[in-house]
Each structure stands twice: as C-alpha cells, then as structure tokens.
C-alpha cells in the first residue's frame, strides 16, 4: 500500500516528503541511517521485514530525496539524502525567526523595565524620558 504523488511543484515535493515521513518504519529507517549507513539487508533484518518490503520503503524515501542508495558490488547501501540538509536549513531558518520574534518583543519588555526603574528612582514620578 505504498503510494506517493510525483510532482515538481513545491506542493508535490511536500506531498512526497509527507507521505515518506507518515510511516513509522520509514521514520525508523531515517533514524537508523542517521547513526550509520546500512544495506537494505541490514535494514530488513533490523526492522524484521522481508527484503522486498524494505526495498519498497527505501524507494519511497529515495523519491523524497530523504535517502540515497548506491550499489557497491552486490550490496546496495543506503544513506541519508540531500533532503536532510535542506530540512536542516529550513528548520534553522524557522528557529531563527522564532528567536528573532521573541527577542524583538523582549527588547520592548526590557525597555519598559528600564523606564519603570528610572521612574521609581525619581521621586517626581511623572517625569518623561526624552
């Protein structure tokens, strides 16, 4: 029951990634490959699955560019694909946006605390800062 949509648009790419990641075994495979490259046979054994079943999962991950494979001799080795790097860059970008937004709001809070403190230190109270 392996399905994926092919497409060159961003939406198509998203669907492919989404389909690839929406399966627990495939997420497990990515986790495994994050630790070390592995052959399809290794992966099939680790996930207690037939070679054919694992091959199907790997194909889905390859289409999403989450995994790349290379055949050396008679063994097909899998490793994390370029998509992982793009994800990391995208994530870092979002992470930066989050902190930037927080810090801009925090700047205002600190500015107010400073003003309040100046106000308290000043018995007249109402004097405005220039």
């Amino acid at each position, binding site marked *: 029951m392996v399905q994926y949509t092919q497409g060159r648009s961003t939406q198509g790419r998203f669907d492919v990634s989404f389909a690839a990641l929406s399966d627990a075994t495939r997420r497990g495979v990515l986790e495994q490959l994050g630790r070390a490259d592995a052959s399809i046979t290794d992966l099939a054994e680790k996930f207690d699955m037939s070679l054919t079943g694992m091959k199907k999962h790997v194909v889905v991950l390859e289409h999403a560019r989450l995994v790349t494979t290379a055949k050396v001799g008679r063994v097909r080795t899998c490793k994390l694909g370029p998509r992982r790097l793009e*994800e990391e860059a995208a994530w870092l970008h979002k992470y930066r946006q989050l902190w930037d*937004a927080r*810090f801009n*709001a925090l700047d205002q809070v*600190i500015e107010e605390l400073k003003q309040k403190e100046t106000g308290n230190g000043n018995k007249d109270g109402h004097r405005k800062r220039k």
Partner: protein
Amino acid sequence: METKMDTGKENKPSANPTTIERKSDRELVVTRTFNGPARLVFEAWTKPELIQRWWTPKSMGITFVACETDVRTGGGYRFVFSYQGSEMAFFGKYLEVIPGSRLVWSNEEGGEGGTVTTVTFEDKAGETLVLIHELYASKTALDEAMATGAIGWSAEQFDQLDSLLTM
C-alpha cells in the same frame, strides 16, 4: 537579512543581531545582546507576567493559558499554550539558578532525556549578552526536531496520523 524584521518602531535603533550556531550533533547556541542590565533581563526571563509578554510571539498564533515558575534550583516550571484551539503543556525543572547571571532548565514533557537549556546573562556596561545553549539528549533527538520541525509536524502527530490511516 529579511526586510520583514524591520517593523519601523519609532525612536528605536535597528534590533541587535541574533547569532545561531549548531555547535555539535547535539547542541545549538543562540546569542543576542539586549540594551539593559543583566538584572532586568534576568527578571524578564523568570517572572511569569513578563515571560508571557515575549516567549510566544503573536506572529505564531500561540497564546499563554498558564505560566508558572518556581525559580530556584530544583524548582519547577509549567507553561501551557493555546494553539489553533488545542492546548499544549511544557514543563520541567530549574536545574541551576544564579540570579542575574545563569539559568539552567530541563524539558520534561517528552519523558526522560529531554533537552537541557542553559542561559547565561553577561553584563557589559549596562548591556547584556545573552547566550542560550540547548543540549539535546542525542543526535537523533536534534535531527528529529529538525526533520519534523521543517515540515511542521511532530513525531506524535505522525503517530496519530498512522493510527488514523490504519483504522
């Protein structure tokens, strides 16, 4: 630099730069300078009524439902957010507290092996350099945060989807 960040606040110099670095397989470091003494910056990081004003940016559509902090070594914290009609709770412990200079907390909502965050506040003549160090439990934990964060889905949401699809 994104022009989006320039909100054109009156009489305000442009915001200080934020630096972000992936230090290792398990570590992220963020730095930023604030125009105020460390004592006040620390206050803004620890008092619930102040945290609520900046920790969840409005642009993200997340709001605070509850915010409790017991800021002492071994004390707990609990943040509850509302996002698109559902609530999420984040909680953990303060592992180390040195008022005005250092704050270390754990994240425990994900069970054992959560992220540990260390924040140091360095006073530099009235300005404060804040350094945020996030230590993930493993390379996998950080990789997973990055992989799921980029698509905007958590492993838990995928698991929920899994159970829906196999029904």
